[in-house]
């Protein structure tokens, strides 16, 4: 059986060789970091003199071609490059595991500022930040910071509220389906804001939630969407990374929205709208701050006011009066006149959560763990 043994060894070597080849093709897909000037000193704490030409890197969870989350970050990077005339390096498809810490650590050796664009990179970013005190780190959506590590995110619940207005106007059966990724606060406050938007124009409509327990699995997302359509929903919103729900809705003559970016192209006639991210201005702001020596680690929460949060153009099937209503409400957000979570707000059991005249603070919204009245579904505890 000696032959067998040898073939095992050979096979294992082959597998490792494949893995190495694959990680080489799939991983470092951005420009080689050699393009960054290596002579500059990578040190600048807040208040210190700035860096004339900072070396910038982005770490992506998916490919820029995902049409959603990473796509929007990549658009932000391009905007930043154009505005400031500098080239950034990118690494795509970085898993939220020990790999992330390795990738971020390698980038930290020859970059001045690194944007880690997924919630799951939080601890890895923090670990690397502690090791490289002269490099600045920017982590999206997290809650841990360091002297050289900031977090940034946006009030996309405001955009969910606007999607809700459009959905509430468009539903004929008064049943709206919501395909939700994971039962975490980000989803819960978006669902609640969406439902409040629906109720602001349509008191009778219900929002029915299913959890897919995945960010990205087109088949599972589609199954979830079909279950909602079978139940009688005629408008869907999918807080997911793929357009599968929109495509399923289009086949049934229903309307739908997705998440993160404008998804009109997947099914123009069936497209409603959805919240979109616009990271470019923030990236410009923070890189510029680094250049001027004014970078700080302050957590940042963007909104309609600074344009980080926006809503995709409403689909061609949405009538003009609905478009106008959404735009008028959007103007209120832009002027800072409207808070989605202003009382009275009841929870599913009918108990008062927010009293009339009161409003939730951003911090309270960011840790929400209950559904408003009119949402059908349960949050696993």
């Amino acid at each position: 059986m000696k032959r067998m043994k040898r073939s095992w060894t050979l096979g294992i070597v082959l597998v490792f060789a494949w893995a190495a080849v694959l990680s080489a093709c799939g991983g470092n897909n951005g420009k080689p970091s050699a393009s960054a000037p290596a002579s500059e000193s990578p040190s600048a704490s807040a208040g210190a003199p700035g860096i004339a030409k900072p070396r910038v890197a982005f770490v992506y969870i998916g490919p820029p071609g995902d049409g959603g989350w990473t796509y929007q970050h990549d658009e932000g990077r391009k905007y930043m490059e154009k505005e400031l005339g500098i080239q950034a390096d990118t690494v795509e498809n970085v898993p939220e595991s020990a790999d992330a810490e390795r990738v971020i650590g390698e980038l930290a050796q020859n970059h001045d500022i690194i944007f880690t664009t997924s919630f799951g990179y939080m601890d890895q970013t923090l670990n690397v930040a502690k090791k490289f005190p002269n490099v600045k780190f920017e982590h999206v959506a997290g809650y841990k910071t360091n002297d050289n590590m900031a977090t940034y995110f946006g009030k996309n619940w405001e955009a969910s509220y606007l999607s809700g207005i459009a959905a509430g106007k468009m539903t004929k059966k008064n049943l709206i389906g919501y395909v939700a990724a994971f039962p975490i606060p980000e989803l819960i406050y978006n669902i609640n804001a969406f439902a409040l938007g629906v109720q602001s124009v349509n008191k009778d409509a219900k929002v029915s939630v299913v959890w897919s327990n995945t960010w990205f699995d087109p088949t599972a997302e589609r199954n979830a969407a079909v279950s909602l359509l079978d139940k009688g929903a005629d408008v869907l919103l999918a807080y997911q990374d793929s357009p599968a729900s929109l495509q399923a809705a289009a086949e049934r003559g229903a309307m739908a929205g997705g998440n993160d970016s404008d998804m009109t192209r997947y099914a123009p006639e069936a497209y409603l709208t959805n919240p979109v991210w616009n990271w470019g201005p923030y990236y410009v702001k923070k890189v510029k701050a680094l250049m001027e020596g004014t970078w700080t680690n302050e957590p940042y929460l963007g909104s309609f006011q600074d344009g980080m949060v926006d809503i995709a153009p409403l689909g061609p099937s949405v009538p003009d009066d609905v478009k106008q209503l959404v735009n008028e409400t959007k103007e209120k957000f832009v002027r800072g006149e409207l808070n989605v979570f202003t009382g009275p707000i009841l929870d599913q059991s009918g108990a008062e959560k927010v009293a009339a005249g009161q409003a939730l603070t951003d911090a309270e919204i960011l840790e929400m763990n209950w559904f408003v009245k009119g949402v059908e579904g349960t949050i696993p505890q």
Partner: protein
Amino acid sequence: MEWFIQLAVAAIASGTPLLFATLGGILNERSGIIQLGAEGIMLMGAVTACMTYLHTGSFIASLLAVAGVGAALGLLHAFMCVTLRTNQVVSGLAMTLFGSGLSAYLGKSVAGTPIPGSVPKLDLPFLEPLPVIGDIFARLDVLTWFSFALVIVLHLLIHRTSWGLHLRAIGDNPATADVMGIRVQLLKYGYTVAGSMLIGLAGADLLLAYSPTWIEGMTAGRGWIAVALIIFARWNPLRALFCAYFFGVMDTIGFKIQLIGSSIPSYFLKMIPYVVTILVLMYLGWRNRNKPTGAPEALGIPYIREQRF
């Protein structure tokens, strides 16, 4: 009844790609070659279907291209397992890694672009008036009907023809088959290529009929489920049909239960397919504990003429 019909339609839709992949795997493994590359081959099938459809707009051309790519990957797997006699598990894993990586690379230009159109439907108006059957079968697409036909053809091929006898012989006891004058290595090549074509078709079906946009890693583990279904079906095409649809039901029933308003945590519902798989395997294992597993006896063992074991 409405509920049952919706469930059946959803189960057939999400079970069909699994069925193709399982049938392909059965054909592979009946000839004695372990097929763990299903995930990678499915991904390659899906990306090929997407790119061909976007370039030519032809459904037939897409299927032919997918068959070609599936055959090429099958040929590679057969070359590794039959001619080079590498370890079949490792070769299969390499196919999965290779297929996932290459499909991601090739698909960059088409990622996120929806394909204009879908699999032609085969409307059968005469079924329409029948209750239940009409609702389920009157508006299926041609690939689904093809998968039904394939189940019957493969069942008859394996169990009722001399070709099937030869196939089973090379999977169970290649030395004896060789003595009988069957061209063992050639047949192993042929069935590995044919099986891989079907697995590629599974990916094409997933893309063309189910989720009409190429997205990296879109099979999300369905190739591995097919590998489990081969064992679950005990290498039998008819059982594969039930197993694939059973899994299709499990894929969607979790959402249905959520929507009824049950308070079972959705994480638990997501576990259902896997828990049920384990339970059914235990039940079948217990019931058939004194019978053979149905696995080809020489599965995974490279055949070398005149070597003693």
